[in-house]
Structures are given as C-alpha cells and as structure tokens.
C-alpha cells in the first residue's frame, strides 16, 4: 500500500513539497533539462522548439498570426464564400 502524505494539513504539506521540488528544479542542470526535453521529442536547441511554447510564442495562435488581416477581411466579405458554406441538414 503506498504511503500517504497527509499527516499535516494538506495545504501545509503541499507548500512544503512545492518548495522542495522548486529547489530540485533550480538545481537541475542544463543537461537534465535537455534530456527531459529530448524524452518528449523536443529540441530546445532548435529555433521554434515546442519547449518554448508559452514563453517565446503564445500557447494559442489566432488566425491573424498566420494570415494577413486585410486578406482575411477580403475573403470573409467575398459573396462567393457562400459556396464554401456546408449544406444545411435536410429533414428526413
């Protein structure tokens, strides 16, 4: 049976654990970080690595990040766009 942590108030135990684990991460070497990243298939040494998501690039990309705003406006207001709309479901 696994040992249980909760001998003290859970919030006290959690804060102590987080502080101790924070120290572990501060002391982690660059090699440790690279090994962990490689385990995940990330290559932090390469530009655009997923490891930097949320740091150098936002987590969520908006359409404006990929497409020119004026181009999007033109496409969205193009009356021919109606042809791209899905068919309405037919009642059976």
């Amino acid at each position, binding site marked *: 049976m*696994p*040992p*249980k*942590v*909760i*001998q*003290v*108030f*859970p*919030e006290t*135990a*959690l*804060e*102590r*654990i*987080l*502080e*101790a*684990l*924070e120290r*572990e*991460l*501060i*002391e*982690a070497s*660059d090699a*440790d*970080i690279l*090994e*962990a*990243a490689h*385990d*995940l298939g*990330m290559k*932090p040494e390469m530009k655009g690595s*997923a*490891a*930097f*998501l*949320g*740091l*150098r690039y936002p*987590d969520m990309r908006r359409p404006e990040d990929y497409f020119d705003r004026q181009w999007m406006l033109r496409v969205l207001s193009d009356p021919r766009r109606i042809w791209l709309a899905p068919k309405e479901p037919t009642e059976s």
Partner: protein
Amino acid sequence: MRPLADTPALRPTETALALKLVSEMNLLRLKTIARLHARGLPPDIGWDDLLQEALTRVLTGARRIPGGIAPVAFIAGIMRSLRSEHWKRFGAARRRRVSSGSHRRYPTPELEGREAAPDPEHSLIAAEELQAIERLFADDPVALRIIDALGEGLAAEQIRATLSLTKTEYDSARKRIRRCLLREGLTCRPK
C-alpha cells in the same frame, strides 16, 4: 508611422531574454517552476501568468535582484510569493463573505481563533493536488516516500535515515524526481 495596434509588443519573457536577464535554459527552468507553482490555483491563473508577472516585477524594478542571488532562484521566489498572495486574498474574500451574512456575530476569542483555521476549500484543493503529485510518481515508490517525507518537513539527512536509503539510492531517486518534473513542466498540457 506604423499604427500602434500593428506594432508587436514583446512579452516579459521575450524582454527578459532580449535583455539577457535570463538565458534560454533558465527560461525553460522557470517554465517548469511556474508549472509547479500554478498547481491548485484557479484555472484563470495560468503558469504563464505567474511567470510573466514575476518577470514584469523584475523588469519594472518593482523587485530588485539582490547581489549574489541567482536570477532564477529570485524569480522562483517571486512566483512562490504570488501564489501565497493569491491564497491570502482568497482567504480574506471568504472571510468577508462569511462575515457579511445576515446572522448575528458574537466576536468571542474562540471565534477569533477559528478565523485562523485552515480554509476548507483551500484544504480540499491542496488535497487534490497532493493526489495529482502522488499519481505523477505512482510508478516510483521510493520517490513517493521521499515526497511524503518532504511534505512532513523532513530534511535530506532525516529522509535518508527514516527511509533507510543510501546516499546513492537517495540521489538516484532525486534525479528521477527531477527528470519527471522537468518532463511534466516542459509540456503545455493542462495542469
């Protein structure tokens, strides 16, 4: 002149990198620490909010890094204090809600003492996070026992003595813990 809306603004993490306040590796280290400190915080406070806020405080000069202290350790400390600020505000808001009730209050010393008692919601969230950490190390009983001991406030030597671990066994378990935390922290999966 370019319209302001079209000018890309650097975020604190990017500014910190550009100013060489932190290296890329240190930024990754801080990301994993931020993921750790975001545990148990409400979903609207993400790990990136914690990190960006901590870096903003340093970049604006609101918090100055004392000489002799590594920037990563200092920034990690700011994130820890942001976390504790959140729980203080949370507790104060809850006490205001309770005291604004329609029932009559009798401010006896016993009731004053009760104000300082742990917040049940905070306890529940913390218990869930402890379970999440246990699940993270479920396949490693030695690591789990070390984490239990850390929760009890034991120091490294006491942990080794209590768990009858040799220095090699203890160091090896710590390495596994660190690797697991780094893997968990480098992803951007939900907490």
